[in-house]
């Protein structure tokens, strides 16, 4: 019986292991080796840490990373602020029948690809776009203004594209919450603020944590939205990696940046978990 079980486990786990090994581990090892190689003055390929050193010595590289990470954190916070009331409304206020419908309504925009959604925003916001046309023809504006190509638009675009990944874990964690907890607190004279901070937030914490991790990583690793909506000032760290690979033909440097992104973003998430006293295992379960 025990042997039988082992065989079954083996059969089922092999595809997963193969997938992990061939598609994740092997390419990463090759990238890691690549990131540790460079050219010496004679043009020969040698082992070196120069690619990693470049990140810290060249101001532009770490500046871009810090900027990207900071914006990703802001996006995460904004996304939480926007989606929490929505998730609360859907799970606690409307009738259960309507809440399913509202959830589908919320998911619907995500059935089209990110590229299409970003272009949709661009059509709305551009200087000769829909919103400018409406405002000028209504006499609210004398001349159309350019609403694209600045940081605020880019942040809005990023919040919009990552909303789904925050709202789903929030809904699922709030759904499990017993309404009588809130009622009891209310009966015992707690103010709405106290209820929010002492009961709802702690209960939803695992959902908030997992949603925040996903949104943070997605915003940090996004390429499309900053490039298309951010325009001229929005050098994102992923774009820098792309540039190293594609424009400068410097795959070694690009690979080093890739690993730095992986390491530094893991570090930020670890720090975030420590500060908020959350556990990764609990958040993901």
């Amino acid at each position, binding site marked *: 019986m025990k042997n039988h079980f082992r065989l079954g486990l083996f059969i089922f786990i092999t595809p997963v292991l193969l997938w992990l090994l061939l598609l994740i581990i092997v390419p990463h090892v090759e990238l890691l080796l690549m990131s540790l190689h460079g050219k010496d003055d004679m043009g020969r390929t040698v082992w070196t840490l120069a690619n990693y050193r470049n990140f810290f010595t060249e101001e*532009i590289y770490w500046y871009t990373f810090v900027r990207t990470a900071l914006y990703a954190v802001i996006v995460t916070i904004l996304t939480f602020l926007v989606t929490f009331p929505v998730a609360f409304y859907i799970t606690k206020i409307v009738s259960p029948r309507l809440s399913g419908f509202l959830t589908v309504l919320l998911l619907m925009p995500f059935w089209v690809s990110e590229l299409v959604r970003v272009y949709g925003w661009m059509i709305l916001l551009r200087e*000769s776009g829909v919103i400018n046309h409406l405002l000028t023809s209504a006499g609210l504006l004398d001349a159309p203004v350019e609403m694209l*190509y600045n940081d605020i638009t880019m942040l809005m675009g990023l919040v919009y594209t990552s909303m789904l990944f925050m709202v789903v874990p929030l809904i699922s964690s709030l759904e499990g919450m017993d309404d009588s907890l809130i009622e009891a607190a209310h009966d015992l004279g707690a103010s709405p603020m106290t209820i929010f901070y002492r009961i709802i937030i702690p209960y939803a914490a695992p959902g908030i944590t997992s949603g925040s991790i996903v949104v943070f990583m997605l915003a940090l690793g996004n390429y499309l939205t900053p490039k298309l909506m951010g*325009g001229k000032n929005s050098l994102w760290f992923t774009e820098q990696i792309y540039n*190293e690979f594609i424009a400068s033909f410097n795959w070694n440097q690009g690979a080093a940046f890739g690993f730095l992104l992986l390491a530094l973003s893991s570090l930020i998430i670890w720090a975030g978990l420590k500060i908020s006293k959350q556990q990764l295992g609990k958040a993901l379960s």
Partner: protein
Amino acid sequence: MKKLITIATCILMGLATNLQAAEPLKILTWKGYAPQELVDKFEKETGTKVELTFTNNEEMIAKLRATRGAGFDLAQPSQDRISSVQAEFNIYQPMDYAKIDSAQIIPSMLAAVQKNTKVGEASYGVPFCYGTDGLVVNTKLAPDAKDYSALLDKAYEGRISYRLKRPTLIALAFAEGDDPFAKYGDATAYKALMDTIADKMIAGKPYVKNYWSNGDALLEMIRSGEVAVAMGWDNGGWKLHAENPDIDFVAPKSGALGWIDTFTIPAKAKNVDGAYKWINFMLRPENAAVFSNQEKYATASKEAGKFLDAEVRDNINRSFTAADIDNIKWYPPVSTEIEQLEGKLLDKVKAAQ
């Protein structure tokens, strides 16, 4: 049940014939370089199916480098980007010029491309089309934009667009009265020159609307009047001129930048015969003219002029005087060292506030 079996047999036979058909011809090229009309004609003539992938110079090289020259049967990089890449990564195979119908090609252009794509004993490219980089201007909004310096001019604040790519650096260096091509051999002097150009671009950054990366998006912004001065390809300006006479391509005073795009065969191409057939097919005068009439690019095919629309010929005469044509700066082959140096500077410009 019988019906089901018949259907299944039909599907299987269909699959089988598909498998029997010859190896498809996979072409890695620029958008517009293989008009549907010509693809259909080629498939009818040879029975070879054509598969197209659209990209640009940098991604073309990166794709072929990743597979060490496999996955495609034909690529179309610019002639100045071939020799150094070939010397370093060995992603193309030597061109067999005996298989090319060279009588169809403008002789001086073929000779120039052969010379510029030479690595060791072999050459790697055949010219396909050529054109220039210059200014696309809405003459009503920016009547005085005659040189690249207009791209840094406060007068056109918020109405300027260019690519954050190497042609812009080179163009602005020419506009400063310098000759970047003469400094290709001396990386230190070249870096000193480009540092000053990058500083100028950063100073002029507030006037830029955006850095375009997609040709169609740029044309759309000029069409709608959002952009008045842009650095772009001549054919784009000419396409817009046909819609709106105010918009046109302007050959800059300090010289339009001339490029030649080529045919090259990747090192591990599977359908080499098909690739040579496609090259000879595309350079046949009547076919080259179909391409030129549609995309407004000039072709390397010698006799194509006979089949060109009058409008296409007028374009060149309108934008270029004889002196302008003599003043075109043709890109010499560029080293990877120079491209890395430029890549870093362009990142710096993009990150600057």
